[in-house]
């Protein structure tokens, strides 16, 4: 029966009888869905922006560095400075099986320190990192030319360098091949073996395109660091939690460097997972709020539809009386009113959905077109699942909006209805 053409003709007649009223009512639902979609998309954009700020670091990774003791221990005084070294890496691997990868790291430049990088007569100041090939697992980069460091570079203390895109732009001409060329870092010559870019520029990774990577062993020798390293990036195996490992790493290192076991300030650390979860909770909260506000707005629209349907039923009282006299079942009257409500909400809601998605898409295009790289907002989007959910909500909302008026219609007393004028 629902597929009967007459049903749809009736829906059309009823809804087009008072076009302005229908439009205004439908607008309530349109706006509800539109706001829901735009807010969800914006929330997602905010999330994308902030999460991208984490850069491409694996979430199961952490940094740890030494920052000086605050408690005396084993005859050693407080405020003693010490540095992490190559030996710590081996000990950590031995003692903590959950560790997947350790990248010991050292740095020249950055934090206001100048480096002296030159090629022929062109000079620049870039960060120089002493690293191991494992870094690529913890913080991947896009290799544009050549290759990244490998184990032989480290083992043989080769004087090779992998340079960031911007380093190349500064030191080399536009069409010049950087591979195989020499650059000088604080007076020591290195051969360029690769050029890299970052995956996502609108993030903290951006600084990295101004960075030069050389083997850590070469770094230690060339710049007189001995066995010392600046800090470590540690990544756990997939099934382990970095938060659990963090304390173990600290106690192993405390043991190695004769630091009091309770000395909380001796090591600094940064745990990606903890920060990531914090953010995730924040955005779960924001999303929850968005749904509440969005559903509220939608509800207002639905109540509007319900109200109008009540008026429509009142206007059609006589017609409903006639239909009852002709033998209309209660269900056929209910289903007709509900069908009208669902049709109205569906059309309005669907247009709202389209308008919302189009708005997000438009904002996205503008962001891309004008190369807006915000750390707070990026790539607003609504995933397919949300769109489907919203569609479901619209249809259910329409049915609910129609149900009360429909029941009122079904309860109309035909004797009274037939006496009404109209």
């Amino acid at each position, binding site marked *: 029966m629902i597929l*009967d053409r007459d049903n749809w003709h*009736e829906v059309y007649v009823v809804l087009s009888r008072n076009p302005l009223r229908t439009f205004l009512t439908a607008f309530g639902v349109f706006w509800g869905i539109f706001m829901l979609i735009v807010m969800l998309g914006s929330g997602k954009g905010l999330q994308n922006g902030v999460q991208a700020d984490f850069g491409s670091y694996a979430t199961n990774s952490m940094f740890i560095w030494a920052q000086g003791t605050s408690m005396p221990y084993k005859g050693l005084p407080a405020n003693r400075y010490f540095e992490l070294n190559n030996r710590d890496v081996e000990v950590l691997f031995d003692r903590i099986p959950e560790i997947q990868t350790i990248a010991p790291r050292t740095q020249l430049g950055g934090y206001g320190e100048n480096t002296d990088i030159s090629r022929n007569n062109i000079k620049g100041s870039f960060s120089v990192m002493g690293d191991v090939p494992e870094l690529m697992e913890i913080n991947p980069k896009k290799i544009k030319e050549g290759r990244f460091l490998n184990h032989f570079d480290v083992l043989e203390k080769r004087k090779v360098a992998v340079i960031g895109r911007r380093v190349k732009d500064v030191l080399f001409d536009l069409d010049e091949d950087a591979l195989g060329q020499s650059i000088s870092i604080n007076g020591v010559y290195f051969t360029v073996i690769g050029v890299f870019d970052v995956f996502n520029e609108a993030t903290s990774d951006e600084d990295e395109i101004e960075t030069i990577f050389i083997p850590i062993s070469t770094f230690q020798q060339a710049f007189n660091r001995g066995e010392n390293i600046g800090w470590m990036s540690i990544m756990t195996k997939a099934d382990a939690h970095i938060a659990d490992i963090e304390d173990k790493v600290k106690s192993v290192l405390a043991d190695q460097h004769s630091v009091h076991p309770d000395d909380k300030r001796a090591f600094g650390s940064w745990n990606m997972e903890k920060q990531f979860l914090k953010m995730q909770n924040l955005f779960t909260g924001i999303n929850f709020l968005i749904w509440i506000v969005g559903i509220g707005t939608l509800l207002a629209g639905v109540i509007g539809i319900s109200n109008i349907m009540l008026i429509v039923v009142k206007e059609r009282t006589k017609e409903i009386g006639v239909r009852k006299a*002709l033998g209309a079942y209660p269900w*056929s009257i209910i289903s007709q009113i509900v069908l009208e409500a669902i049709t109205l909400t569906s059309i309005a809601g669907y247009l709202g959905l389209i308008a919302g998605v189009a708005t997000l898409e438009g904002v996205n295009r503008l962001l891309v077109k004008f190369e807006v790289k915000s750390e707070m907002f990026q790539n607003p989007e609504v995933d397919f699942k949300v769109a489907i959910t919203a569609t479901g909500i619209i249809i259910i909302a329409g049915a609910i909006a129609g149900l009360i008026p429909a029941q009122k219609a079904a309860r109309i007393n035909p*004797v009274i209805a037939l006496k009404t004028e109209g």
Partner: protein
Amino acid sequence: MIKLVGLNKYYYLGKTPLHVLKDVDLEIGSGELVSIMGSSGSGKSTLLNILGILDSYQSGEYYLDNHLVKDLSQRKAAKYRNQFLGFIFQSFNLLNYKTAVENVALPLYYQGVPRKKRNALAMEYLEKVNLLDRAEHLPSELSGGQQQRVAIARALIANPKVILADEPTGALDSETSNEVMNLFRMVNKEGITVVIVTHENEIAAQTDRLIRLRDGVIDHHVVQNQTSG
């Protein structure tokens, strides 16, 4: 066909109940053409509504084609109305946004007859009331007499046993009234029971039997026109 036994109907307006129909006993045989007359407030409309299962009653019994009609569910009442009854109203009560043929087909819609089939049948009934050329017209494009003929076709399409007409000629001039009455007699000849509520003597005179109602009581029956029916 219709049998009322000791039927009482009250309306509860305010404190004292209004006794509208008082112990009404009535029998209308199959194929009869009957008119009900009475002054305003005599209970004739209430009686017609009860016969049409549009209204309920408090005590007594109403048998329609040997089915007891009492305290029916909405669904059952709708089914009986659709199967047994055809209604004709003073103001025609056609749906103004549906064409003549769609109006006629409406009762079949509630029987779940497919659109094509019910519209084809509706055309047959429009032919019967001589309105085939107006099939695609809206009610607003038809004269009062034509609208009432469409309404009669609509009342007939579900092949009812009883036609209930409430002042069917009340809004028509005498010439079209006669056309409508001719139709009723034609329908009646086919064996359908016809009950007409009217206040016009000329209309009542064209029926087999006149039932006069006064203050909720059947005042008297007048048997006339023995030839028909």
